[in-house]
């Protein structure tokens, strides 16, 4: 089974800040995903570009060097994602970052999508019917 774990802004903030009350919680997902990856299991943790902008995650900034080492891949806001996200934002009224999360969920070619988020209802809303599992932070 091919798995994708997506992070929202709150999950990124929790990951970055060791003093964040959910830091150890999000780190647990990074750790288990890395163990599975090392055993040749198809799993990725990813962050949509618009979420990264909202979170202030600049990969060139020293403040983010630790998080950069966790190999969380970017999902670019390319033409296709921008079109889908624009539609989601218009229909649901969510933020640009959440709309991009929705586009990423809908475009995922994996068997299983899990989102770590502080707003599970919004994630189900932006998935617009696509099967997604949500972990509330």
């Amino acid at each position: 089974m091919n798995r994708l774990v997506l992070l929202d802004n709150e999950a990124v903030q929790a990951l970055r800040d060791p003093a964040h009350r959910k830091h150890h919680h999000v780190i647990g997902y990074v750790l288990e995903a890395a163990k599975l990856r090392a055993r040749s299991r198809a799993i990725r943790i990813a962050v949509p570009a618009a979420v990264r902008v909202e979170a202030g995650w600049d990969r060139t900034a020293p403040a983010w060097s630790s998080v950069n080492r966790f190999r969380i891949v970017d999902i670019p806001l390319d033409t296709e994602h921008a079109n889908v996200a624009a539609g989601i934002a218009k229909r649901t009224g969510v933020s640009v970052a959440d709309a991009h999360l929705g586009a990423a969920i809908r475009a995922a070619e994996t068997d299983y999508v899990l989102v770590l988020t502080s707003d599970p209802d919004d994630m189900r809303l932006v998935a617009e019917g696509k099967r997604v599992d949500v972990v509330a932070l």
Partner: protein
Amino acid sequence: MTAEEAIDRINELLDSTDPDTVNTSMRIPKALREAAALAVSELGVAPSATVLAANALRMLLEGTVVLAALDLHFEKYPEARPSLADLAIALAEIEGSPLAQQPDLLLRSAAEIKRRHPHAEPQDVLVWAEAREYTAQEQKRTQAGQKGAA
């Protein structure tokens, strides 16, 4: 080179899109090479033994470099280390296991198994919780059957 520098360089190399290939003088057991060739020709697990080896090596490196980064992180911030229960819940969610919907059961199971097996892994907690769940359901069925017979 510090561990951080090594991790950053490994990540940089793993992300490289450079298509250049190189012949290596890496020696691998002859039997392993033959097994890989058979897996390719007879089982179709990869287009070639080279692709099979490169993919396996890439996945191992991608996982272990993150584990190495996490080790450094936990050295610096010991309180950031997730508990066995945290890891079991994360694993259950990632695996899409129905046990993820029963965090209390996983918390209890993690505490129980840790008492008996201090070095238990998150996967052990899931198996333990599954066994407990199965036993509880069997007991309920037995009791319902006994009530019905009475």
